[in-house]
C-alpha cells in the first residue's frame, strides 16, 4: 500500500460563538475568536489517500481526478466564504480546525475512485493543525 498526499488551499472567515452562553463565557473560552464580526485564515488542506500502485500506469490514482474532487467538493464551497454563515455543516457546529477536518472527510468519503481516503489534515496556520482518520 502506498500513501499519496495532495495539498489545496482555501481562505475563509469564521468565528467561535455558542449562542446558549453569555458573551462573557464565550470570551473566556474562545478569546479573540469570539468576535462575531469574524476573522479569517489561509487554510491548507492535505488529503492523503491509500492505494496500490497500478503496475501499468505507475499511479495509485489519477492525481488530476483527486485534485478536481478536492476543488469541487471542498475548495469551491469553502474558499472566500464565511464558514459560519455560508457553509451548511457549520450552521449547527462551530468551524473549529477539528470540525473542519471531520467535515472535509465526510465531503470526500466515497467520492475518490480507486483509492481509500486515509487522512484529512487541515492547517489553520502553520503552527496549528488537526488530523482526522475517519475514526469513530
Amino acid at each position, binding site marked *: 500500500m502506498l500513501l499519496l498526499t495532495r495539498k489545496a488551499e482555501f481562505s475563509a472567515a469564521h468565528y467561535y460563538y*455558542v449562542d*446558549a452562553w453569555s458573551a462573557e463565557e464565550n470570551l473566556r473560552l474562545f*478569546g479573540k475568536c469570539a468576535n462575531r464580526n469574524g476573522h479569517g485564515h489561509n487554510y491548507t488542506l492535505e488529503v492523503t489517500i491509500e492505494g496500490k500502485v497500478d503496475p501499468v500506469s505507475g499511479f495509485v490514482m489519477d492525481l488530476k481526478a483527486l485534485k478536481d474532487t478536492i476543488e469541487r467538493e471542498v475548495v469551491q464551497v469553502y474558499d472566500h466564504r464565511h464558514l459560519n454563515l455560508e457553509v451548511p455543516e457549520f450552521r449547527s457546529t462551530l468551524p*473549529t*480546525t*477539528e470540525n473542519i477536518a*471531520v467535515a472535509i472527510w465526510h465531503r470526500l468519503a466515497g467520492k475518490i475512485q480507486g483509492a481509500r481516503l486515509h487522512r484529512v489534515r487541515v492547517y489553520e496556520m*502553520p503552527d496549528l493543525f*488537526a488530523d482526522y482518520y475517519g475514526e469513530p
Partner: protein
Amino acid sequence: MKVYLSRRYHFSASHRLHNDAYTPEQNRAIYGKCNNPHGHGHNYVVRVTVSGPMDPVTGMVCNLGELDGFVRRVICERFDHKNLNLDSAFEKLVPTTENLCREIYRIIKSGFAHVMLEDVRVDETSNNSFEYSEREWHLISARQ
C-alpha cells in the same frame, strides 16, 4: 469521533553535549562539534499532538488557550533563551534532543491531564527531528 490536534511551539536555547563519564577525547569523538566547551544553540520547534473526542458544543479536542498557556509556561518560558545544561532536568542527563524530547513529553504528560497526549516531536534544526511517545510506534506510524 477521535481527532488529533497538533500545535507547534518555539524556543531558542543553548546546550553542550558532554558526559563526565567519558574522557575528553571520547567526548570529542562522540559529540563532535556539539562538545565545544562554550556551548552552541538552536531554534527548537516543539510539536505537541493530543487526541480525543471533540466536545459536542465547542467542537474542540481540548481548549487551545489552556494548552497554549500550559505549554508556553512550563516549556517555552522554562527553556527559552536559557542554557539547557543548567536546567534541573539535565543535571544528570546530557541535553541531547532525544533527552529533551522525552523530558518535554513527561512534563506535559504529568501536568496536562485534560486530554490524551499522543506524541511530542522536537525539531532541533530543519534537518534533525525527534519524536517521543508512550504508544506503540507501529500504531502511530500507521496514522502518519
